[in-house]
């Protein structure tokens, strides 16, 4: 119906993933922040995972879009 849901999903996770990745990078030295997560920079890892997922969704969305045009 109307829109391809892969676009908004891809866009949102790319955006949120990038946000968390940057936040993770900037707070990397903050040991107090990551003491809860056992010293793991969980923001960075989650961010990268979401970024990857978002980009894969976008690639699929563009491919569907292209094949529909043809």
């Amino acid at each position: 119906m109307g829109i391809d849901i892969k676009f908004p999903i891809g866009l949102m996770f790319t955006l949120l993933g990038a946000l968390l990745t940057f936040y993770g990078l900037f707070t990397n030295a903050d040991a107090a922040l990551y003491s809860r997560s056992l010293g793991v920079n969980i923001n960075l890892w989650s961010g990268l995972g979401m970024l990857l997922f978002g980009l894969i969704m976008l690639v699929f969305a563009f491919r569907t879009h292209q094949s529909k045009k043809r």
Partner: protein
Amino acid sequence: METGFTLSWIDYLIMIIYFVFVLGIGWALKRYMKTANAFLEAGRAMPAWVAGLAFISTNLGALEVMGMTGSGAKYGMLTTHFYWVGAIPAMVFLALFMMPFYYGSKARSVPEYLKLRFDEKTRGLNAILFAVMTILASGISMYALAILMEKVLGWNFHLSLVLSAAIVLGYTYLGGLSSAIYNEVLQFFIIVIGLLPIVILSLQDLGGWSGMKEQLAPIVTEKGFAPDTWTTTWKYTGSAEANPLGVEWYGIFAGLGFVLSFGYWCTNFLIVQRAMSAKSSTAARNTPLIGAIPKMFIPFLIIVPGIAALVLLNKEGSGFTLPEISPGHYNYDYTIIALLKQYLPAGVLGLGITALLASFMSGMAGNVSAFNTVWTYDIYQSYIRPVTGNKETDDKHYLFVGRMATIFGVVVSIAAAYLASLFGNIMDFLQTIFSMINAPLFAVIFLGMFWKRTTGHAAFTGLLAGFFIALLHHGLTVPEGAATLVKGGWIANVYTYPVEMAQNFWTAIFAWTTATLVTVVISLITKQLKTDDDLKGLVYSLTPKLKEKHVAWYLRSSTLAAFVLAIATVLTILFW
């Protein structure tokens, strides 16, 4: 225990971005909502994977997530019975044997299928009950959400209620069922990604699965069970006393695996509606099967952290606590919240909270979008203003009614939320009533689909009889230690069940058996008013078999079903 969090700017930013997308999807769909069919049935155009994820997401509401994580702590891996035996077989059955009739009959709702197969009174009874219950359910999840926001985030109860209602109203009013479905897919991904860090961190903290198992042994032994009870599923179901569920294997099999799960998955319109929105009959059959694949793995996402929480709770120096209801009795509903607090720093914490809020709201949206369909087609169109024959004005009119029903549904939900805040037991009450309605409904629909002799009078009587027997059974039995009459025994106390779960199972089994017997007997003594021609496409023996020859072998429902059952079997054996 202090349940509150302090969120930082990054957490709020994540939350805001999510809700901008949620409303944005509704906004983008607005221009496609020109007919009642587009608004209420999503135009029957959903790809199978979208419908499938929405199908499973509808069930993965916040109350489910919170409840199942709590059950993970209370019962361990035995909780997976709600998934591997309590959902998968029913979902496969729905896909292979029932979807062809729901979808192929062109019925727009489960009540409408009842009308086509049986008669007006059977539809009317089901439609009205469903409409009332759905709105109450939506109100209760709204209430639970507002309570959570008040306790955890320190937000104002009334403001939280109105704000969440406004967001739900916003996107369902704009985009109807499509909007609800798309947002369920979005919610599915955010909940998986938002909760994954807890699974990984809690297991890492406890030294992996084997480390957790080792630390569980003394805790479980102290409760009076075998050391590996919390990490196995069927091993200790030989007797009811050996496992914390308090039910034997045959009770689990018949109660959970058959009556309760088939009643829920195969007849609940809220769920079935997702599959009905699929774009083709093959897609409709594949919807529950695609949903079944993630469903099998959800236990690892929400039950395993619950088990970890039990270890943390008993571990000195872990700093992990749960709020207590009374001294020594924890409120396990807060398990997931406490885990979020334990492990997640600012950033992913926002993601986790957003995931919970998202699943509350999509639960409400799901209820509202099912309500407006049943209201518009099964109540308004049937009893108040029937179709006039002028397609254009009809379409406009029913679209308008559907939209108004959405507003009405949200407003009544708010009222129901306040009702829930006055009567704390309303949720238990609702769940009890639901199980009393679903089991007979499954009996009747099943007989209707597979036995052409089933008559309308029989179906109607069967539904009522099943419901009254369930009510009677509930009124005559109590679970051990029940404090209120909502739990049962309001007529007299004839039998005491060791746990509430066992009582629920047997209520459903009695209801189903009665409904089946009554429907069969009355069918045999009343006249079938429908001809074979009327029943074509509605009954198994009178419907031509669906051909799937043009579909690639790996996309056929039978292949997918075999695949799903194989994985469920492997998982069951692995965690036997």
